[in-house]
């Protein structure tokens, strides 16, 4: 069976102009503008299966939002192919968007001067949801997202987090098969974030809904996604399971040693001392240059050991190094 989303060599080039600061340069740019072409996406390809929760991550300006926009049909790419549920998103926009839900964390997607509930009812008609079904879903989602009290207040009077919850409800009320969440946890407190994660997992399980999530919060990613795509400078630099990322990029271990006394100064190939006190030493071991075994041997001969802990760096740290290396 064909995957739900097939992306082939997707490219997007933006045309912008550059201007030096200052008034003189502003006047100059009246007559002559130096145009620049910015390659937001340099031809990315990937596939997504139905029912998956895919993490789409990358540093600022990596091209995540551009990719989400092209996939959700609101942007005309420069070249490349996208096939989602047999639609070409930007060509079949009106028909296609009926089957998807999109939350842009940075955008106001509700009627600013009206209570959120008005937008929910608009969506009921726009997406042709049956009255009974709508009431049932609304009741259920309002309870989980805890927005009984806020959905009748004009949106402009709500807090960032409250608006986010209402936006999520508005994007999911028609029970779409595919959901794009672009920075969905902005403005949410810890409890609300956890609830959101549970909610997404629940919807995913119950309706086999596919989610594509972009976020800078690695905790969200770890809790939600099995598979991730890391994108930087418009290119995919990692695609695969979150667990495998450790195998591929885990070149370091953190070792914490507590001891009573030492016979000589610590000095071993491939090790970096991160922190040292009289009875404790923190070491970063580079696995390409030396092994755990050698290190432990070395420690046992040279130190009167009390305790050793060996740790992997967190996913967040691994991804940080991936960002920095590219």
């Amino acid at each position: 069976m064909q995957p739900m989303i097939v992306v082939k060599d997707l490219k997007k080039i933006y045309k912008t102009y550059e201007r030096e600061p200052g008034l003189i340069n502003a006047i100059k740019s009246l007559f002559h503008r130096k145009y620049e072409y910015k390659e937001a996406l340099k031809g990315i390809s990937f596939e997504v299966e139905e029912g998956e929760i895919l993490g789409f991550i990358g540093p600022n300006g990596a091209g995540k939002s551009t990719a989400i926009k092209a996939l959700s049909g609101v942007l005309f790419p420069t070249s490349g192919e996208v096939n989602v549920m047999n639609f070409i998103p930007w060509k079949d926009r009106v028909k296609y968007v009926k089957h998807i839900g999109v939350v842009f964390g940075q955008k106001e997607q509700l009627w600013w001067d009206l209570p959120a509930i008005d937008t929910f009812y608009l969506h009921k008609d726009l997406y042709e949801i049956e009255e009974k079904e709508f009431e049932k879903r609304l009741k259920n989602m309002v309870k989980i997202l805890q927005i009984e009290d806020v959905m009748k207040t004009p949106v402009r009077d709500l807090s960032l987090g409250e608006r986010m919850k209402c936006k999520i409800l508005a994007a999911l009320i028609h029970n779409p098969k595919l959901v794009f969440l672009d920075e969905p946890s902005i403005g949410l407190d810890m409890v609300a974030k956890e609830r959101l994660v549970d909610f997404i997992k629940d919807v995913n399980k119950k309706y086999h809904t596919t989610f594509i999530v972009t976020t800078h919060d690695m905790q969200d990613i770890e809790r939600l996604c099995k598979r991730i795509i890391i994108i930087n400078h418009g290119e995919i630099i990692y695609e695969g399971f979150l667990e495998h990322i450790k195998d591929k990029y885990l070149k370091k271990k953190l070792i914490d040693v507590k001891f009573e006394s030492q016979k000589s100064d610590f000095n071993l190939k491939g090790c970096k001392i991160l922190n040292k006190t009289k009875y404790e030493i923190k070491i970063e071991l580079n696995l390409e240059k030396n092994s755990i075994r050698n290190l432990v041997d070395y420690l046992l001969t040279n130190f009167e050991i009390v305790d050793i802990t060996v740790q992997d760096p967190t996913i967040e740290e691994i991804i940080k190094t991936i960002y920095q290396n590219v």
Partner: protein
Amino acid sequence: MYKKIKSIIRMGFKDAVAYRFHFYITLITSPLQLLIYYFLWKAIFSYSGQEIINGFTFELMISYYALNMIIAFFTWSGVEEWLEFDVRNGELVNMLLKPFKVAYFYFFQILGVNSLSIILEMAPFFLIAVFFFGLKIAPVFYFLTFVISIVLAMILNFLISYLVGMTAFWFNRIGGIRRVKRATVVFLSGGMIPLTFFPIAFQKIFNYLPFQYIRFVPINIYLGNYPYLKVLIMIGIQITWILILYAIAEFVWYKAFKKFAGAGA
């Protein structure tokens, strides 16, 4: 489809209700505006000593302006401002995510705003014009065709507005273009002075432009200045213009959407 349209109109209406104060203000200022025209033309008529100027008696002239304002309420279209805002801030993305054609969505939203305007501006002002400014109630045929022609005028004005608004895809800020457009439309539609005040050559040119069908023609229909057949022909021309502008708008939209980058996040 009907349900979707109703729902969008309702949104526009509710949104306008949130700003109802604006309508109350115009309800006070518009009779004052008509009063200014009243004294202005009174002075002009007494100075010239003529009973009829360019085909208008004094009473007809005041009716002309009253109807002009009534049509202005109903044909209001903020779509060029909305488009400018949405394109510049990238909020157009929200429009694009709705399973509905963008132009239609804006149109029905504006229809919602204008429905509130019927209740809060048009109807009260019509009564004021009838009771205090001597506006006569038109015979049934002219009244009904007038209603049809202002609905068409509203669509026509919307399409012109929408076309101008789409320039925002290329220029981002279109405050200047908008002002030029507003002046052009008010002037060439007969919103400033009746078009019969222009030289014949100009009037001939106006016949080939869409603008007079927004104000001048509907007003003349109401005032009974056209024979029955001409009324129907005029409505036919209105419809033709709507079809022409709609085709152009579709074409420009296709280009504009390609251009749209979705500024911001």
